[in-house]
């Protein structure tokens, strides 16, 4: 059923099948805004009120403006092109990142917990993160930006399948 090792070696990984929700772009934007927005505001205030340090607040404003644009526009759009996910009967597979891309795959036989978690921003947007953990402290797979119904359903299904797959999960 599975290809022979030599055959497999000459193959490449295909991207996971599904994209995340388009709303995830908004989610990543909001995250960046919350992080860099205050920075920009503070440096603008410093530029206006702190005359003693004159040339430097301008540099800070420029830097945080660049950070804001990169974080709120470039990063979310880029991430949306990269982030993909897929689950099968035997494994969970996800691709994440933007400057650094990461492919993660874990067999369901090693899965310990499957949860759909929602941060405050995600609740606001109706999104959810699927969190699949294994016995390894570094082995968790987080798939963010799913529709909350999809995430809940997949979590449910994976939990059911993971119980059926033999293995002691370590």
């Amino acid at each position: 059923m599975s290809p022979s090792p030599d055959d497999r070696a000459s193959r490449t990984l295909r991207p996971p099948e599904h994209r995340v929700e388009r709303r995830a772009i908004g989610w990543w934007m909001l995250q960046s805004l919350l992080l860099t927005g205050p920075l920009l505001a503070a440096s603008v205030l410093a530029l206006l009120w702190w005359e003693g340090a004159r040339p430097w607040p301008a540099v800070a404003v420029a830097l945080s403006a660049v950070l804001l644009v990169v974080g709120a526009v470039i990063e979310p759009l880029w991430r949306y092109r990269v982030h993909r996910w897929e689950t099968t009967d035997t494994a969970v597979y996800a691709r994440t990142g933007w400057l650094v891309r990461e492919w993660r795959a874990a067999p369901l036989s090693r899965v310990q917990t499957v949860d759909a978690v929602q941060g405050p921003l995600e609740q606001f947007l109706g999104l959810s993160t699927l969190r699949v953990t294994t016995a390894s402290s570094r082995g968790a797979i987080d798939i963010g930006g799913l529709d909350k119904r999809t995430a809940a359903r997949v979590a449910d299904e994976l939990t059911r399948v993971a119980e059926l797959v033999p293995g002691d999960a370590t």
Partner: protein
Amino acid sequence: MRPPEQAPRRPPSGAGTPGAPWQRLSTRVIWVDLVQSVASLLPAVVALAVFGVAPGSGQLWPLIGFAAFGVLGAIADALRWAFTRYRITASHVEVKTGVFLRVERSIRRDRIRNVDIEARPRHRLFGLRVVNIGAGQQAAEGESALALDAVSTADARALQDRLLRMTDATAEPDGAAPAGEEATRTEGTAPLAVLARFRPGWVVYHMMSVWAYVLALGFGWGIFWLLGSSGVDVTGFVAGLLDWEAIGWAGTVAIAFLAVTLFGVIGLAVNYFAEYGNFELARVRGTEGTLLRTRQGLFTTREVNRDESRIRGVQLSEPLLWRWLRACDTSVITTGLSMWSMARPAAVLPRGPVTVARRVAAEVLGGESPWAVSPKAHPAAALRRRLWWATLFTAAVGLALLGTAAAGLLPYTALWAAAALWPCALGAAFVAYRALGHAVTGPYLVMRSGLVHRSTTVLRRSAVSTIVIRESLLQRRLGLRSVSAMTAAGYGGYDLPDLDADESVAFAVHAAPGVLDPFLVRPRDGAPPEDERPPGAGGARPAPRSGVSGPAAAPPGNT
């Protein structure tokens, strides 16, 4: 002495034997405390009676402090003894302790990962042993190690045997009857094979370390202070040893440096003999399967047992500065042992020659030798990446120095430091590149990397749970990728940087057998990973998706 009045309040959760009696720690702990009190009073008494130091004089204060510290410590320890009870039920090990703040703790017996026996000289004097019961990585749930400080040697061995024998948990009669287990104990401790023994010659690997200076300075200061407080003119003595004026400033520094080095090196050598004396690494018969047992220590003895069925691999770590000595630290990759503990329970050998470490590692793993295939070097692009980083790092340091020089804080000559740094950084880049290597031999992955510590990780492929491939922008340009194999054992994951991009997939496929198979395509009919197809538009999908999921509608699938 005190009835265990709290016992009925908290029935054991394991409902097996509510009647298991609570036990005290060994009464000999009190003797230890008495001896400690007397011993700590002794210096002050000797100073008063023998040397006739006037009471109330300043010289007596350190001794009084020492005595008070010792006696109060002993009293606290005796109180702790009086208020501590433990018991072993069918399902749990429970300990109640604390004088003012009562603490009740329990560890489920099936969670127990290791039972270690430890003894300081004061324990050994009275035939006592400290038993540490660890539940592995359950620390987050408040189930970190329980220590029974202390029980008699025979009880300690019996406890160890009993707790590591999980299958018997239901069968055996409860209410610890250590005496009856003597027979199994002697049988169980005879080693099946001794893998390594103490080698005095290995002291060379332990004599040189930065710690030599820490040790020498700390020790020297302590001696200086002690002698000074008892009226010896140390400064005058040292000043009179040599004609310092004639030697000059540089000579004095050199001699001081040499003296401190010598002192520290001797200290570390002594420490090696004290810590690793009687060392033995042996495979012993456990109650289910075999255990890897290390015993070590001349004065403070330590015995650690590691369940071999939990061992997933071995890691050899060669520190950069001692590479010329071929020195190497050896540890096992196993589940349930804390890797961050100062006691380093995973280390199975003292630092020693890499040849021995490799032999022992192969014997620990058993079966096929992981060293049969020599690791394959990584592509030249990996060297280029490291050289770039080294150059960028040097440039950053140079810019920082330039900035400080421009601000007038440093002379411009400081820039030469950056110039000197560059060849060093390039050399380090080359060494780091040479360290890279990987191989798949039989059931094992062999991954080698690291600059300061070149670590060779041998990991059982069947232990890999999550497989990760990573690619940064720069790596993508250079055609490189990093692979990490995540596992439940050891540090939780082991990284292999900068493989050839095509080879990374092959390595990942071998690392986690079967996991990636459904996601592989032939390069021609499938899209390369760079391709960002719109969802659902991809034509060639080799593995029929018996899918559990889809984002839009629930597929029929198998559920």
